């Protein structure tokens, strides 16, 4: 019994040490946002800022840069992307799962093969396409190219496939159209899968970086990630302010994670993150 206790102690010690290492960059980012210049530049490092209510870095970062606008842009893009992709995915997954049309399974197989193609390969042409469509420097250019996702459709189709056919027949007998059946029966049943898809999508929308750097050059349409990037590449800009802006930028995702951890973890365990 004593050996067991010692073993448990070791396990906790190791797990706590690991957790500290994993969380440290977050702590460091957040705490440094409250530091004064002297504290920030001290060596050995200042572990705790003297004044946790020193909001100087935040206010200066937000004054100097349009972070408020970037934040709103990111919220809009994430919200619209999640809703539109959600709708398109529901329709597509239902089509592949329930409706019969020629070549259905062959088409679906081909789509799965397309999933292998990295976005980085498509980006070359997509950049030209949106330029030709005159979509650069707008919020819609951050949403539209990602609306049709094979990956999300695949997850949802797999779930739809597990729903028993008998439900479908009884709904049809009761006179429900396919449309009604989809929204009244299938979608409510698939809620856990849908929530997972939407969460994964929200995370990847919010954190999307490379695409916005290509298609947004105007200050007006910058997202948070892009704002951070231009902030850091600006010569002579104050690192403390960048950290304050970073802290604000990761808050929504941290809150999302704290509230929906189980959904996110399950989703990741089942299908992995996009990309």
């Amino acid at each position, binding site marked *: 019994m004593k050996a067991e206790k010692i073993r448990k102690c070791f396990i906790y010690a190791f797990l706590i040490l690991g*957790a500290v290492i994993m969380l440290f960059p977050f702590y460091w980012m957040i705490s440094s946002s409250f530091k004064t210049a002297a504290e920030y530049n001290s060596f050995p490092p200042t572990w705790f800022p003297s004044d946790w209510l020193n909001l100087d870095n935040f206010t200066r970062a937000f004054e100097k840069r349009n972070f408020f606008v970037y934040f709103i842009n990111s919220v809009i893009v994430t919200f619209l992307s999640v809703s539109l992709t959600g709708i398109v995915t529901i329709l597509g997954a239902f089509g592949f799962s329930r409706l019969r049309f020629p070549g259905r399974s062959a088409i679906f197989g081909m789509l799965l093969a397309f999933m292998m193609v990295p976005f980085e390969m498509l980006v070359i042409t997509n950049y030209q396409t949106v330029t030709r469509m005159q979509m650069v420097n707008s919020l819609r250019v951050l949403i539209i190219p990602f609306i049709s996702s094979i990956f999300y459709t695949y997850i949802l189709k797999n779930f739809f496939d597990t729903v028993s056919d008998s439900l479908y027949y009884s709904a049809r007998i009761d006179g429900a159209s396919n449309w009604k059946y989809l929204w009244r029966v299938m979608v409510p049943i698939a809620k856990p899968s849908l929530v997972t898809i939407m969460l994964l999508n929200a995370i990847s929308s919010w954190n999307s970086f490379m695409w916005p750097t290509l298609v947004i050059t105007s200050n007006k349409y910058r997202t948070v990630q892009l704002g951070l990037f231009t902030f850091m590449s600006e010569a002579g800009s104050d690192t403390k302010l960048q950290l304050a802006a970073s802290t604000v930028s990761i808050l929504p995702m941290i809150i999302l994670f704290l509230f929906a951890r189980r959904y996110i973890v399950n989703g990741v365990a089942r299908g992995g993150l996009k990309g």
Partner: protein
Amino acid sequence: MADLAKKEKPARSKAEAQGNYIFNRKWEPVLYMLPFALGLLVFTIYPIVRVVIMAFQEKYRLSGRYDGFGLYNFQYVLGNDDFRNAISNTFIYVFTVVPIATILAILIANLLNQKIRGMAIFQTAYFLPMVTSSIAVGLSWRYIFNSQIGVMNWLLSLFGIEAVDWLGASGGVAPWNIVAVIIFGVWNMLPFTIILLLSGLQNIDPMYYTAAKVDGAGSRKIFFRITVPLLAPTIFLTMIINMISAFKVYNEIIPFWSGRPGAINNLYTMVYFIKEQFYSKDRLGFASAAAIILFLIIFTFTMLQRYVQRKFRY
């Protein structure tokens, strides 16, 4: 009601399934598939075709026309110093980050799989980096790696080790740049890896453990004789998924040098090279050729993954 049910029932037969028993209007599926198909066509299928064409199209002539098709783009790219640099950095990154992250994740997942208190707190701590952007957190790492005031060098100083120039290039060489990126990369990859391995562990039949304990096996023996072998397929799959994503390393190098590839342009990655060629240099052919080389590497690993999945599943 019963009458109708009878009418519907034969619809399940295979012959009927080929027709449109499920809807009475032939155009109905089109309406459902249209938005998805449209987006896919414009932003996935067309670009795939286009990138293949561009990769094999020879350079523009002065007249603005193509020379025709050939392998020039591939020749150029494979002979380009930046691309060679990119390939070697990308491979070093993949074959250090993935094994290190996997070994650490096996240990952590194994501990998280035991009956312990505070599971929610530990999960939150270990999984958080998965949802936060590499750009934002990378800034914090940049501060940690700072050669004068960084935490990393403070830690080293405790052991009497001299300050390391992690992100700089003192004396014109920058050997530590890639080490910093690797450390950041491992930290970034851990959450996803732990989650996959943990779900693999939870699928192991507890019977094996009970049997081993009855036989008096110690915990180390149980770990190496039962856990690791039974987890092997999951470990292998996780490694391949991670390799595929690690080959696309790009975001991880952005925050450390404000978007430049290393202190002295020494840290090109394949994706960085592709992006620079088509975006900054407007060389679509070279970018496409490089993208296809990247795809072929990813394709090989995906095939390997499919093969293993099929072999182990049943």
